[in-house]
């Protein structure tokens, strides 16, 4: 009988598998959130877990984000390793105190004596007309605030490995999955959302970027769904004789600044793409990293593509105007080359 040695999963299934395997390995891991039990998570992150582990370990909560995220902090301080799901990252407004003032600061306030080993996972991103309160990415806001790690996988392999790492990390980890990379059947099909995923558990290190595509003429640094857009753009650029290097940052905190600098020293041109708001965010941080650490290597001012400081509009034509896409990325890269 032949058996599979390699098999593919969608990103959504990879996340659920990571959680399932870690829950099987460690009894102190449990999940809670809205609709994560019977429904399997609105975005499928906990598919199948209730049937396997039961309601004690897979807990459907009331609509009480402050309550259950604060409870996750208390449980993490007292011997458990909770995974709490914030259904949409846009909802952080109702519970932000527990996240940035509590979860992220207990370890520091205690002088390193009290760790908070929890994962806060959440869905982010737009492009499917869910409008201004259900389409944001907002990772810049969280990355800005000290005390929590922030990871953003773009593909199934990283999604599983980063979730395993996040669960095993003794720090609070904000695990942000872009809805567009999940490979959900009810979203627009995305070929990059399915990929090879080893069956056994494995880790992807938090704090290390990945070179999604090697290149020599321009560095395109980004996270999440924009990695897919950048890879599509790189294909277009190759036809025009331009070799783009795509860096999938994967972690915003800690940020792999060395990877950014190594690439910029090689290509001399930097384009940063972010599906978050333009001002005071990730693009500014990555560009400043390059300016601070590799100024002499730059042959053109770094460029950026991000949402132009407006709430995300509903109408499809408006939303597509504000979101990064392969065409905009390829265009900006070409402008950088000729600058």
């Amino acid at each position, binding site marked *: 009988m032949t*058996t*599979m040695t*390699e*098999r593919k999963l*969608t990103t959504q299934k990879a996340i659920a598998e990571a959680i399932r395997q870690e829950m099987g390995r460690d009894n102190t891991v449990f999940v809670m959130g809205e609709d994560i039990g019977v429904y399997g998570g609105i975005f499928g992150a906990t598919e199948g877990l209730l049937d396997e582990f039961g309601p004690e370990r897979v807990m459907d909560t009331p609509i009480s984000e402050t309550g259950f995220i604060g409870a996750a902090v208390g449980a993490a301080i007292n011997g458990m390793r909770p995974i709490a799901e914030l259904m949409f990252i846009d909802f952080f407004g109702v519970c932000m105190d527990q996240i940035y003032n509590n979860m992220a600061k207990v370890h520091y306030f205690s002088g390193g004596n009290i760790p908070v080993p929890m994962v806060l996972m959440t869905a982010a991103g737009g492009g499917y007309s869910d409008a201004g309160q259900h389409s944001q990415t907002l990772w810049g806001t969280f990355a800005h605030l000290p005390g929590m790690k922030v990871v953003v996988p773009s593909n199934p392999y990283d999604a599983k490995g980063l979730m395993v790492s996040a669960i095993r990390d003794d720090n609070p980890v904000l695990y942000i999955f872009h809805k567009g990379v999940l490979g959900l059947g*009810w979203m627009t099909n995305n070929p990059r959302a399915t990929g090879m995923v080893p069956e056994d558990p494995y880790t992807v290190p938090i704090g290390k970027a990945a070179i999604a595509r090697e290149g020599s003429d321009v560095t395109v640094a980004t996270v999440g769904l924009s990695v897919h857009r950048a890879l599509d753009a790189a294909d277009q650029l190759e036809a025009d004789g331009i070799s783009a290097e795509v860096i999938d940052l994967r972690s915003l905190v800690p940020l792999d600044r060395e990877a950014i600098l190594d690439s910029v020293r090689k290509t001399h041109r930097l384009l940063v793409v972010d599906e978050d708001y333009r001002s005071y965010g990730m693009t500014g941080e990555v560009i400043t990293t390059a300016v601070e650490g590799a100024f002499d290597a730059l042959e053109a001012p770094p460029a950026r593509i991000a949402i132009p400081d407006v709430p995300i509009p509903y109408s499809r034509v408006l939303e597509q105007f504000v979101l990064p896409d392969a065409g905009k990325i390829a265009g900006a890269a070409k402008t950088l080359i000729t600058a």
Partner: protein
Amino acid sequence: MAIEVLMPFITDGGEEGVVTAWMVDEGSSVATGALIAEVQVEKVSQDVLAPVDGVVIGLVPINHPTAQGAPICRIVGMDELM
């Protein structure tokens, strides 16, 4: 001997379904019970598992409308590929 893997019957209305994700490639080896595809009829998703060991061939394209009960791929024995 080839086994046809069918689009499952998910709804009563006779709607066509689609494969939304293939977990295998043309020519991949699978074991019985392995997840090979995710399909969708209307808004309902379902996982499709391999009914036998073998090699998967003849994958229908992603999002290609396929009747419930119609084949989405075939699984053949290793020896049949030789």
